[in-house]
């Protein structure tokens, strides 16, 4: 049996890590290679060691990359593809900025837009070229329910995630005639270190549940998936609330 190669960008994020654990758990012997890309080698090593204990037969490789520079992103992705084709790529990095700070400090605002919007799109674009050429692979990108409609409490983050949504839509259109699948995942508020300061404000979904939804969506090659599924309905309603009402709601 051939080895499945899964590439994870932003592999130290809790969501990505739980997807990796799900993949590692179900992998039969010697049939899976995980390529972890992150910014910090020591944090990548922590994730890689954990996966190695869980599934000693799974090959795990850690790669450090700059996430802001287009040429560095291109070089990282080209080098990975030079080793062989990728079956699944998951782009998972992100950072939940403080909205108030983004309004005061344009540097923080720019950083939030870059990390959550620009950088994932650049990675996706670099990977999509290789997948299109091979006419093979599933490219999954983590968006957010926050990208469905801008609201005052986190619209900078929402705008970046909205960019990812629109980008994924276009990429799906471009690759529709190929074998390449593009999966956009929109998690609701999830219990991860990124949302640690929100706890108590709302019931957050366990990250392991969201990871299972993501892995299933990738298996099925679905175009858009909300995680958990109830957010499809919630966001459908939120998107359709008329502005004159929406603008009076405090969310």
């Amino acid at each position: 049996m051939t080895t499945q190669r899964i590439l994870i960008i932003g592999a130290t994020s809790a969501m990505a890590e739980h997807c990796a654990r799900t993949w590692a758990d179900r992998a039969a012997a010697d049939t899976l290679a995980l390529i972890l890309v992150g910014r910090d080698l020591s944090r990548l090593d922590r994730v890689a060691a954990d996966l190695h204990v869980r599934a000693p037969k799974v090959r795990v490789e850690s790669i450090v990359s700059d996430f802001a520079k287009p040429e560095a992103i291109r070089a990282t992705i080209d080098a990975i593809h030079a080793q062989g084709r990728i079956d699944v790529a998951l782009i998972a990095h992100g950072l939940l900025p403080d909205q108030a700070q983004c309004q005061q400090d344009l540097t923080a605002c720019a950083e939030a837009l870059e990390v959550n919007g620009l950088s994932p799109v650049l990675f996706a674009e670099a990977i999509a070229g290789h997948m299109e050429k091979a006419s093979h692979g599933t490219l999954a990108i983590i968006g957010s329910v926050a990208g469905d409609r801008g609201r005052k409490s986190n619209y900078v983050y929402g705008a970046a995630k909205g960019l990812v949504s629109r980008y994924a839509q276009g990429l799906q259109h471009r690759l529709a005639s190929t074998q390449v699948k593009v999966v956009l995942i929109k998690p609701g508020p999830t219990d991860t270190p990124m949302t640690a300061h929100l706890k108590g404000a709302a019931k957050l979904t366990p990250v392991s549940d969201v990871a299972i939804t993501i892995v299933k969506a990738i298996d099925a090659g679905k175009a858009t998936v909300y995680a958990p599924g109830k957010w499809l309905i919630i966001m459908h309603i939120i998107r359709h609330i008329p502005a004159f009402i929406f603008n009076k709601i405090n969310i």
Partner: protein
Amino acid sequence: MQAISSWGRLSAFPHEVISLSSPQQARRAITEHHPGIAHGMGRSYGDICLNPQGVLWNTLGLDHLIAFDEASGRLICEAGVVLRDIQHLMIPRGWILPVTPGTQLITVGGAIANDVHGKNHHVLGAFGDHILSLRLQRTDGRVIDCGPDLAPQWFAATVGGMGLTGVILQAEIQLRRVAGPWLDTEIVPYANLDEFFTLADESEAGWEHTVSWIDCICKGGGRGLFMRGNPCAETRPAPHAGHLGMPFVPPISLVNPLSLRPFNTAYFNLKKWQAGRSITHYEPFFYPLDNIQNWNRMYGPRGFFQYQSVVPRSNGREAVQAMLGEISRSGEGSFLAVLKTFGNRQAVGMMSFPQPGVTLALDFPNKGERTLKLFERLDAIVREAGGHLYLAKDARQPAELFRAGYPRLDEFLQYRDPGISSALSRRLMDY
């Protein structure tokens, strides 16, 4: 601020919860935000894991496995790893945690800090007996590595040390070989405490796991079901796990004088009828309540206490009989009542709960003053017998009983981290 309860649901005070997500970030969080106390799954019953109006360091993000040696069974992992994850991962590979308590939904750090015990104490001791080393983060920034052979005093203070000697970041655990997930088990009904002790003594040599359910209400208490088991090499497929749960908190405790007696009688007679040998999966045998999510809600909005004592064997029979008498007279209590003998072993930790003798654990719905008065009468029996109470379960014992029951307290206090404080430590140790 976030309302946090422990498993007994006796209080829900606001806490400043700080999630620890990596060892580096944990170091910053602990040195910059204290006094606080580490909090994992929140399965201890009383106030040992609480710090009302103060800081809780949530350790569940420290959930990484670090290394495993397939040949020796040594596992190094972070302190927030949940025991269930270790069991699920390792049992199919032929290794098992040597000691686990009645729930596997607790963290490694919590298991060490409470030096938890299981049904096999007479064979394998407590959780701390299988820790080869651990790493402590102190609030002054210092990191201390300790183990039975390395800084043994720090180790003895930390095992069973209530999380007060530092935040446990990681530990190395010696796992144990196991053939599979099945046990050869037997249920033997007993009519009174004498029969219980006879069964316990004759089972010590031939059975690795022993425990008993005791009817705390019938005729002064004393009848029950003795359960024993040994690992076996059965290879049938795992049973389908049930998913029951208490979806809401009932307005009154479902455990009350009206329900208790009929339930106990029905349970005793059903099991008496089913008594004998069978092959049982480890999960229902070790962790019978883990499949009923939020079972602690059944005691209603006021929550519940668990009263767990250990008394020496020499006067254990009389002390247990006296406690059952008090409970039966009061009409309080619950069907969750466990009686078990401990092995004749010295505990690893200065403040560890297990000691040679017999331990009785009972749940009590919280009825305020009435329940507390009953506990005072039980305290008197425990004090008289030279026993002590389990700190992982305690929410109310007086400091004087605690000091009398834990003679190594003064030695332990030298190892406390001044930046760590819990509701329990303030109640029993001044800060």
